[in-house]
């Protein structure tokens, strides 16, 4: 009997295992194999086993530094802006206002991020916000093609991804808990700190994770709003594959990024788990 059921189990796991193998393991394997290879004279790959590509990683140090500074910073800034909005939507807003606001958050998603980011080129350009600042006496502000422009673009682009998980976690918890807290004499501040915030941690954790992981691979926003001067690892990869045709070095950079992500995300998850006191309902994506 036991053997039979374990066979059945294996059979049931097979489709998922195959899917993982083909979609995840094999492509990653290719990247790792390539990263030890040598660049063919006209681009492409020559089999080899050398660490040269990895030893050359410091040449992209600035790209890693920019990514590792701006991705967490962008995630944190998006969280600061998204939380009050999600809180208002879930707890304060009337049904009518809530629906309207939700639609307003969703609708821009129907347009490509490329076009929306292009719009920011003009908003942050000399004829946009800097000109408005000029009129009220703040002169000489330059935004476009600076890290600030990239940060603004990131917050704008990723805000909905942060708002929704938090909104959902705030919306689904039992509002009677808030009344109970108040009845028991807690100030609104204390209620927020001891009831609302802990209960929304799963949403915060999910939102931060979503935004952070996507940001680590971001290249469009820095390319458009950074003017080629604020360089992410994603931009370095695009250059290596489409310009230099240096697949092997590109693979090493990609592999390094994967490893950095694995490490940071595992640390992050450990912290979240601990912060949530090993709560059962902490679900990450």
């Amino acid at each position: 009997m036991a053997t039979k059921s374990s066979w059945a189990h294996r059979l049931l796991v097979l489709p998922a295992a195959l899917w993982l193998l083909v979609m995840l393991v094999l492509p990653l394997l290719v990247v790792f194999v390539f990263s030890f290879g040598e660049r063919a004279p006209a681009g492409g790959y020559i089999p080899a086993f050398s660490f040269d590509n990895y030893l050359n990683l410091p040449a992209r140090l600035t790209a890693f530094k920019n990514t590792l500074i701006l991705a967490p910073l962008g995630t944190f800034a998006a969280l600061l802006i998204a939380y009050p909005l999600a809180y208002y939507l879930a707890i304060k807003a009337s049904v009518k206002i809530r629906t309207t606001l939700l639609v307003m958050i969703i609708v821009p998603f129907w347009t490509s991020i490329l076009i929306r980011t292009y719009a920011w080129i003009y908003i942050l350009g000399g004829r946009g916000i800097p000109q408005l600042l000029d009129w009220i006496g703040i002169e000489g502000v330059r935004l476009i093609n600076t890290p600030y422009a990239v940060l603004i673009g990131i917050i704008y682009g990723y805000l909905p991804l942060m708002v929704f998980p938090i909104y959902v976690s705030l919306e689904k918890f039992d509002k009677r808990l808030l009344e109970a807290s108040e009845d028991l004499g807690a100030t609104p501040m204390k209620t927020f700190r001891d009831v609302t915030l802990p209960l929304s941690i799963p949403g915060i954790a999910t939102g931060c994770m979503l935004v952070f992981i996507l940001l680590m691979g971001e290249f469009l926003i820095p390319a458009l709003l950074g003017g080629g001067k604020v360089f992410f690892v994603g931009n370095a990869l695009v250059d290596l594959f489409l310009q230099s045709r240096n697949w092997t070095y590109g693979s090493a950079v990609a592999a390094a990024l994967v490893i950095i992500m694995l490490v940071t995300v595992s640390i992050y998850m450990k912290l979240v788990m601990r912060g949530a006191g090993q709560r059962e309902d902490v679900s990450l994506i």
Partner: protein
Amino acid sequence: MKDDNKPITRKEFMKQLRRYEKGSISRRQFLGVTGLGMATTVMAAAVPSLMPRKAWAAPNIGDRVVLATWPNYHEQANFEAFTEATGAHVQVNVFGSNEEMLAKLQAGGSGWDVGEDLIEPLDLSKLPNYEASAFEPRFSDAGSVNGKLYAVPKNWGTTGFVVNNKHNKGARMTSWKDFWDRTKTDYSGRTMVHDYQLTTIGNALKYFGYSFNSVDPAELADAEKLLLEVKPHLFAINSDYQPPLRNGDAWMSMCWTGDGKQLNTDIPTMEYVLGVEGGEIWSDYYAVPRGAEHREAGYALINFLLDPAINAREVQAHGYPVADSRTNALLPKALLEDPILYPAQELLDALEFGAAATLTDPNRAELLARFKSA
């Protein structure tokens, strides 16, 4: 999310790299390019028709021809006329840059047969509209290797810089030395360079009087030093320079003929300058890849586009000069006398064709990537 972004990402490429490069090719190394660094408009052709062919389509050339080319580089009405005349549809694949074209060819994504020799010697019997004597040798010779013709010229152009003289305090610029020095001083924060190794490195090399095509490590080291020095003073590293120049954020940029012409027409203070030290002259070509599937239709389309009357309409659409005297005879005089399109001879003489070895040089590619990520 990322899946949603994927198609967008590709489009963003087209956009970002839009003005990327029209490409250049040297005579010596045309074959060396092996269709690779190919600043060339490549024709592919495909399998016998699956779609019903127009019954009256005279020569049996198939239902389709695939043209790999740059954005805004052809007159659409001409393609329609071609389909009308032959029954073959023109499928246009637009690439953002030479490197992108090559990357896709090598990845095999295009379905083209990519061997070491990428393009075939042209069968002139299929191109009655090509008349060698009508073309300026400087451009047409580059298409031949060892007496065999591999490619015919489409149009040519130059790479200089465009500068908004509104901000120059009466001191005009005439050289690449001016371009780089003024970027560090009164044009600081207002200059753009291409996101393209050939021109950005090439024009940095010209500052020292080196060849635009240099791959000498010591000379490249000088160019890199200059680029890193200038980087904090740049407005952007981006080949899509028209928008910021137009809205006033940028005052100066490396620039191709067609963009220089358009900017100067709309904003008269924008001057297109060819550095006295030299710089780049380039030409694009039509060629047929080896093993092309719609080969016959490819030849038919090239022949069609070489017809002087058709080509004249192409020029009016893309705004770049052509080397075919029969076509020039049909163009308005104002166009032919335009100093941006047809610069003075002594300026032209100093220019170099971007060599294939330069285009595909891994050290130059890596240099630019380092400069960008610095």
